[in-house]
């Protein structure tokens, strides 16, 4: 039996004047989960987290933390806390005082506070000597850890993150993503994370919610969102993708401009059927597209001209312009690289097990 969700949103609406930032959102977050909300700027994810921590009030709807309705509870009375984008460390306090701040508010004795602060420094792999350091003496990554330690000292039911890594350089961000994931498993706490970076979401999360214009477009595990997006928006948001407009034919097959489809008879067997006259979007990720030799074939074939290639480290990315004028992206591992010159004619192929059909999009 599945346990009760730790956080439930029911029909949550947020309006700013005549602008509706959230359109009646429902959401269940499970205990102990690392849940990430991803969306472009303006999608409503920041509004969402402000409502969740209590920095803004809902216009309508309910937020439940286990059996308590909390949408009217002010931030300082909610048993949750947040790591801010800016980290919001207190510049006039030492590292130790920052970490102990929530404990001091609860009047816990100084010796206990210090003991807990040192434990948290251990947990976040900062040396004990940092206890007396000034915040201004810490590097970006160290400040990040201090902010995390302070939030953990609060011992929240849920720990929220508002894009805390976005200001850091790429290398440090990659390191901290992994640290956060490991911290999540070591603490067993529920993490709710907001970011505009899908990569970040994929590395860390148990489940991902994609937000668009104040609504959830899709909520699922990373593989599902990557492989089976429910809409064009999600497909395109989840990295490089090739999309083809197709429609159902009278014979129960599929037809698309600029793409040869060789599975017409048994498209149904692969869950790819479309009703006669209805349209859909066929999606294939760049790594599943093959360069075909003239003799070989595939379920789907596209002809085009190689326009460019880029080295991406372990992979090579190719750009091919199809006869219909569409630009396709193909990615190959170095060992599978295609050696034709730019401008050469190429035949591309991919198979039914690697495509996904977005209906009605």
């Amino acid at each position, binding site marked *: 039996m599945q346990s009760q969700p730790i956080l439930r949103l029911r029909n949550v609406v947020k309006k700013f004047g005549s602008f509706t930032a959230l359109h009646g959102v429902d959401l269940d977050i499970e205990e102990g989960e690392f849940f990430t909300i991803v969306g472009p700027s303006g999608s409503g994810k920041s509004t969402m987290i402000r409502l969740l*921590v*209590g*920095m803004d009030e809902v216009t309508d709807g309910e937020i439940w933390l286990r059996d308590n309705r909390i949408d009217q509870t*002010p*931030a*300082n*009375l909610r048993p949750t*806390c*947040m790591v*801010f984008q*800016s980290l*919001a*460390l*207190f*510049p*006039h306090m030492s590292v130790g005082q920052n970490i102990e*701040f*929530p404990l001091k*508010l*609860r009047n816990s004795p100084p010796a206990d506070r210090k003991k807990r602060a040192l434990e948290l420094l251990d947990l976040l792999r900062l040396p004990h000597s940092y206890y007396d350091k000034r915040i*201004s003496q810490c590097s970006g990554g160290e400040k990040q850890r201090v902010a995390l330690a*302070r*939030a953990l000292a*609060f011992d929240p039911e849920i720990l929220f993150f508002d894009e805390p890594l976005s200001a850091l350089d790429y290398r440090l961000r990659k390191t901290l993503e992994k640290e956060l994931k490991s911290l999540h498993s070591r603490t067993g706490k529920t993490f709710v994370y907001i970011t505009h970076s899908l990569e970040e979401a994929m590395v860390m999360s148990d489940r991902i919610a994609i937000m668009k214009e104040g609504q959830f477009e899709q909520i699922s595990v990373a593989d599902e969102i990557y492989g089976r997006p429910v809409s064009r928006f999600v497909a395109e948001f989840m990295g490089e993708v090739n999309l083809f407009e197709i429609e159902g034919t009278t014979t129960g097959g599929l037809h698309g401009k600029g793409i040869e489809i060789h599975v017409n008879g048994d498209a149904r067997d692969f869950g790819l059927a479309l009703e006669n006259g209805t349209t859909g979007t066929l999606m294939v990720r760049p790594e599943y597209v093959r360069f075909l030799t003239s003799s070989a074939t595939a379920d789907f074939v596209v002809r085009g001209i190689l326009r460019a290639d880029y080295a991406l480290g372990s992979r090579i990315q190719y750009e091919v312009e199809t006869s219909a004028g569409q630009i396709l992206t193909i990615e190959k591992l170095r060992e599978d690289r295609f050696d034709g010159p730019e401008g050469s004619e190429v035949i591309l192929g991919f198979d039914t097990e690697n495509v996904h059909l977005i209906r009605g999009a």
Partner: protein
Amino acid sequence: MMERIDRKLGFLSALPLGIILVLSFLAPMVVVALFSIMPPKVFDLAHIPNFAAYSVFFDQGYYKSLLWSLGMALASTAILFVICWPLAYGMAKVFGRFSLILTIAVVMSLFVSENIRLFGWVLTLMKGGLFEGHLRALTGIGFDSPLYNTGIIIFGLVYVYLPFMLFPLAQGISMVPDDARQAAADLGATRWQILRQIDLPLAAPGIMVGSLLSFVLAAGALAESKILGGQAVIVIADDIETAFTFGQNWPLGAALSMILIVIIGGLAIFGVNRIDLDAIMGRKR
């Protein structure tokens, strides 16, 4: 090498202002200091120094004037802080464009001479003045004038020195990051705890500058006690003026000045040392 040239250029650039400061600020101070150790009622410095003027300060009760000045300055500074905090908070964080109007309004009051504004209050508050006169004419009931006591002097100090507390305070409060307040609330702090542990310490430079300015100005203030207070109490600035004018006792005036300067200067140095002036001036550490 470059550093030495830089330092030399810096020194040369500072030289003109340095000379002006030495001549206009330091030189008179030295003259006052020298006069304060001259025997009573002399008008030049060619005498054997003694400390007679300083002993007069204690013997003839001038210390009472000083205590009144310092006491009323302290009271008006405390009142100013309490009045200005919410106003300054609004200006820095809430009012938006309206804070510009407020700034202009407060600054405009400085365009009219302090004495004229104080006489305006006298005309407003005196027996038969704007308030009492109208009230008595309309209702037949009058009231005693609130003028000519220490309370009204403190009111006058608060009124005149409000801008000197308000603006530094607003500057100080604007230095408190919003996210620090939000984070404190998120971590469970009440409004009062946020004020005590976040707002006050982070706005400390502004509080210190505002308090020092109003205290220093109020401690040396004269017009409020003369015009509004009707000399209900004698303040130290009054004694100094009298000593230099009617009393014709320059050494006494100089000694009283020195005492005031040392106390206020000590306070200012103590205060300024404790805050980060660079921070409030907007320079990075």
